[in-house]
């Protein structure tokens, strides 16, 4: 029975550790927003500078239809975007990995006394708040990933279409609506699995919240009598 209790407590504490990591994703959202905003500013400055240069200084053409400035701006923008997205993902990963977990293991090794101590030390309101933050964080993260793929798709399609027009390879002006729709379809197709995973995770957290609320309320009211 003592082994059973330890096992059940381990399940609970592992779940709470996972909640801590998810909550860290929510806390990282502002960092991600800053990194992505800075990336957007960098790309816009690059594109605007390139366009201004093209208009005021002319376009240097080398063997037919080659426009090195467009390629520079296009490839530069793509590199900046890749760097920005990589930076954002790295930031989240580093913060999540820095979360201290498993600190309860040595106490739980004591058996039932350890379980009692750990149960007594749980701060339920903080746990419930963490679960709510975790749900929000996971949802935002899922949508953000899809949004980033959409933005990246828009930029790539726009830059290459623009380069083809400037290079006189195609004669259709850039159509922003067509680009946005094509990128959205691509983004939804690529992030479909990830979005489903996030949906399931949020559902699991909901279940955990309900279970723990029940446990907290029942355990508080319960009266141990020998």
């Amino acid at each position, binding site marked *: 029975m003592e082994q059973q209790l330890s096992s059940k407590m381990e399940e609970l504490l592992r779940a709470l550790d996972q909640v801590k990591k998810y909550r860290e994703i929510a806390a990282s959202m502002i960092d991600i927003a800053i990194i992505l905003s800075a990336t957007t500013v960098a790309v816009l400055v690059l594109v605007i500078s390139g366009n201004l240069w093209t208009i005021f200084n002319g376009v240097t053409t080398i063997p037919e239809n080659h426009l090195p400035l467009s390629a520079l701006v296009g490839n530069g923008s793509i590199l900046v975007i890749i760097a920005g997205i990589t930076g954002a993902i790295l930031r989240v990963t580093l913060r999540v990995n820095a979360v201290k977990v498993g600190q309860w293991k040595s106490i739980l090794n004591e058996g*039932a006394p350890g379980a009692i101590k750990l149960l007594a030390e749980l701060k339920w309101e903080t746990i419930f708040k963490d679960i709510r933050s975790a749900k929000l964080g996971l949802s935002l993260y899922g949508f953000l990933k899809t949004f980033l793929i959409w933005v990246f798709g828009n930029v790539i399609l726009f830059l290459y279409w623009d380069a083809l027009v400037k290079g006189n390879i195609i004669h259709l002006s850039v159509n922003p609506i067509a680009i946005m729709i094509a990128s959205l379809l691509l983004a939804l197709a690529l992030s479909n699995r990830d979005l489903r995973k996030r949906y399931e995770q949020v559902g699991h957290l909901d279940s*955990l919240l309900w279970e723990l609320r029940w446990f907290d309320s029942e355990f508080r009211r319960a009266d141990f009598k020998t």
Partner: protein
Amino acid sequence: MNSEEPISKPDLYVIARVIKILKERKKLNRTTLATSTGLSYDRLVKYLAWMSEKRLVQFDSDDNVFLTELGADTYDELVKWILQYVGKVRFPKLT
């Protein structure tokens, strides 16, 4: 303050630890019990006074401490009681 004066609000964790050690080692003197449970001697004495009053532990003629039947049963009941609640919680698979 008399070091043998019982405590008013016992820590369930400490009581559980003392009972667990005594279950494993059957009989111990106070000093060894304090070392095994990681408690200070004075604190252990207070807890033993409380536990003795509740008939969870007894002392023999050599002043060694041992667990009573009530003490052993109480521990098992405590584990069972906690498991009654913790055992009902279903944990979803979080990845």
